[in-house]
């Protein structure tokens, strides 16, 4: 029962995707150009539609456990870009006082529990949040966010079994970004080095309902997520959502690069801007352009409004960037402050 969304809601969703995209572009520059941080990092470019579509379906009391590719999840849930960016730069003003960084960024105020960058970790921790929420009564649910590679770890299978056994209200969201991935051949982590041809058969084995959705399609993701969330709220046990997206070319190398350039929003209406090696990406995979075209097509937004919206987001991220760069670093001694309560 897809009811089309009202323009205003669509606008908000597109805006959030733009926040994430401009944010990730800024992160990449802060690493490669500003050398403002030195660690390995992972960008959410190409998956914005999944994150935003999913978060739109959640409520304020729901808990989440995310993983190494968390920037988009945290922003989609509504965290302040400036605090997130400060966190990635390891500043005191960051969401986690700079101690989490890109790999462990989490926003407890928005229901995020500890962010694990150990592949498979988020699945296992999400079970715990679901267990706690179940114990408390009410209808809040837990969401475990992870990638296709997580299904290579044994703990993922153990956790699916536990979730099914204890009928935990947990929504497993597997963002399969390996479609068209070159895996190790491309120098990237060989994600989905699996003999399982269709990942949905894994949750099925444990009797967990599962559906696959095109992760590029924000509204489709949201519709499926709404169904899944309702299932968990009704305490019918866990649900597994499999969102498939193309692996963004920029994440093929081990260290992300803006291979496809900074987003040129005018590509949403001006085909002439599109050409070259990444043509297919701009036309068929970039979820921001896809959704922008949809909204232009339906008349929910005009080119000028879109340009304006994008400029607003650029400015917002530019401010966040300044905020982060000017934020103080933690004091050395504070390294021992949060080891114990």
């Amino acid at each position, binding site marked *: 029962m897809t009811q089309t969304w009202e323009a205003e809601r669509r606008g908000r969703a597109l805006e959030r995707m733009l926040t994430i995209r401009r944010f990730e572009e800024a992160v990449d520059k802060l690493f490669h150009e500003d050398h403002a941080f030195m660690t390995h990092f992972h960008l959410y470019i190409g998956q914005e539609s999944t994150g935003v579509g999913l978060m739109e379906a959640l409520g304020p009391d729901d808990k989440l456990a995310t993983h190494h590719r968390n920037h988009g999840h945290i922003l989609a849930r509504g965290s302040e870009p400036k605090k997130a960016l400060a966190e990635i730069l390891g500043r005191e003003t960051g969401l986690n006082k700079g101690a989490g960084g890109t790999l462990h960024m989490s926003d407890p105020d928005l229901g995020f529990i500890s962010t694990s960058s150990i592949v498979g970790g988020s699945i296992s921790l999400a079970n*715990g949040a679901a267990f706690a929420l179940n114990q408390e009564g009410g209808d809040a649910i837990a969401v475990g966010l992870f990638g296709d590679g997580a299904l290579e770890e044994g703990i993922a299978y153990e956790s699916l079994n536990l979730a099914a056994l204890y009928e935990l209200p947990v929504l497993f969201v597997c963002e399969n970004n390996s479609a068209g991935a070159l895996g190790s051949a491309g120098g990237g982590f060989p994600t989905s080095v699996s003999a399982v041809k269709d990942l949905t058969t894994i949750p099925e084995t444990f009797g967990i309902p599962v559906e696959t959705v095109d992760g590029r399609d924000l509204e489709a993701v949201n519709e499926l997520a709404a169904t899944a969330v309702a299932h968990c709220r009704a305490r019918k046990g866990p649900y597994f959502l499999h969102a498939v997206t193309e692996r963004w070319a920029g994440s093929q190398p081990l260290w992300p690069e803006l291979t496809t350039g900074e987003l040129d929003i005018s590509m949403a209406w001006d085909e002439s801007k599109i050409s070259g090696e990444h043509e297919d990406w701009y036309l068929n995979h970039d979820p921001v352009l896809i959704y922008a075209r949809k909204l232009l097509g339906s008349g929910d937004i005009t080119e000028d409004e879109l340009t304006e919206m994008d400029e607003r987001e650029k400015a917002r991220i530019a401010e966040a960037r300044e905020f982060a760069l000017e934020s103080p670093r933690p004091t050395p001694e504070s390294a021992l402050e*949060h080891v114990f309560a």
Partner: protein
Amino acid sequence: MPTKNYADAMLDVLSRFMDEDPNFVVMGNEVLGIGPEGAQFEPFQKKYGDRILFPPCSEAAYTAMAAGAAMCDHRMFAHLGLASFTYPAISSIANEISTARTSSGGTIGVPVTLHISHGLLHGGGAQHSESPFGMYWNLPGIEIAAPSGAKEVKGLLTTAIKSDNPTIVLTHAFGYGAEDDVPDGDFEIPFGQADVKREGDAVTIVACSMMTAVALGAADELAGEGINAEVVDLRTLVPLDEQTILDSVAKTGRLIVADEGRMHCGVASEIAAMVSEKALDSLKAPVARVARMDAPVAANQVQEGYIAPDAEKLVSAARQIVGEVPAAAA
């Protein structure tokens, strides 16, 4: 004071939190071990069954599940079985539980209590005899208790469950039946307070877990020879009560550390290193580590006994270092 064994002491504590805290949950199989004391679990199970989980053989995932619930401020008690069975769960312990508070900037705590059965089993072999105090003490962010008897089980387990930090409580797999006078009602033993179980002036024996009883036996024997040993029960490794150890060594000038874990990078090494750093001048003789030799445990009592720390080894170590010429006079 009523006499109780470890098992009863544990049930005292678990029942108390079951009654106090509707969110308190106990998970694990053979929580009271696979010996006869296991039967004592039944009445507890009958009463609190809906909050007791017998998870599948999935140590990594149920440890993480307990941790995830604890990250939502639920106090969780997870029994992981024998120490060897905790190895599949070490990523959940080392990567998730020990780091969450720091990585979140102090915003996320993990008040989970992990209960582990450790120790030599009289022939249990290489995969059922581990005492990995050293491995866990090498991790940050986790409090570690090693009760020496039923009284300590009650007092330390209570403090562990109340703690806002993740805690690991290691009890001896052969200890469930060991009895002691255990106070009724609310009884806590604060963390970070070692207990001088026997006073003496000739040599200090710092003991971990059940080695405390072994050390007391050795002390009796030594007393017969006029060697008056002081026995210090560590009680908790994290936090460590350095002062009580240093005071004792200042008095005796001699240190023996007794631990059932392996020698290298174990409890004995840590205590010896701490003293050599902070009280070298008090030492009149070399430190002696009486710990498990660095070998996998062969599944027979003869070879197991050879590598195990025992009263005899403590006695001869004491004789030797008491006989030593003080370093100062060397």
